[in-house]
């Protein structure tokens, strides 16, 4: 069982290491033009906007978890997983919306919706992953 778990973790690490450069390369191909034309400030503002959505979802999840169990182990992992999903999805939609020609108001709504969606997706992914690899608490 312990070996299986170790192998699974190594496989996950390997797939992450192999897939990461490919996805970064694909992102520059898809959004390269926009990355060059967008100012750092607007990217930072988008990151902050999506982070706020992520933190809102995070606080609701924290409250729910505290009501259920009183304490959260690996709190930083919990926070990072929630906010990373929001940031990634928010940034992708921001660059995508630029190329689709959506007006600024719609773009802000799309970023917020994507940030919430990204948060939801990562949270589910982390939950299903941890349920598979870590024995359930009794």
């Amino acid at each position: 069982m312990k070996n299986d778990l170790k192998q699974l973790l190594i496989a996950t690490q390997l797939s992450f290491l192999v897939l990461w450069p490919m996805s970064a390369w694909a992102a520059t191909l898809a959004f390269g033009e926009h990355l060059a034309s967008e100012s750092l400030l607007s990217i930072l503002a988008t990151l902050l906007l999506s982070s706020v959505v992520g933190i809102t979802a995070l606080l609701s999840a924290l409250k729910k978890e505290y009501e259920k169990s009183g304490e959260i182990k690996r709190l930083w992992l919990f926070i990072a997983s929630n906010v990373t999903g929001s940031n990634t999805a928010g940034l992708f939609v921001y660059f995508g919306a630029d190329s689709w020609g959506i007006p600024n108001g719609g773009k802000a709504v799309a970023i917020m919706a994507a940030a919430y969606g990204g948060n939801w997706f990562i949270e589910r992914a982390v939950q299903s992953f941890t349920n598979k690899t870590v024995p359930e608490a009794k």
Partner: protein
Amino acid sequence: MNSTYERRKTTLSADILFRIFVVFTAGIYGSTALFQPETLIYQVAHADAFSELIMFSLCLLTIIGAVDVGVNDLLPERFVAKRTLKERHLINMAITLCFAVQMWTCVKYGLPRSILPFYGLLVVLIPIAAFIDIQKRYRFTK
């Protein structure tokens, strides 16, 4: 020793003061955005229809936040606004979201950036205060 204890008991705590500050700031922001056309805040709030909608939402949220602070923090303990107390983190984060959208609008429309530190400060500090509030009220309660 006793007098110190009594004084600490009656002094407003830092988180209550911060919530009062947030509600006042949001209120002043809303009133400036509505009634002061010569200000930068007005320009940002009226940059497009969505920004106006966000500004009106901020005014509404300020009223809800003021009810929360007034009833749950300042009035005696027998007065409780349960719903706002339960959803306090959502009220605070909704106010933060309004400021974050206004900051984003300011950057996207290329409006003067002197106002950005104001938005940035609120967008960073309010979530921290909301996080601390959740930790204080719910951690180890089970």
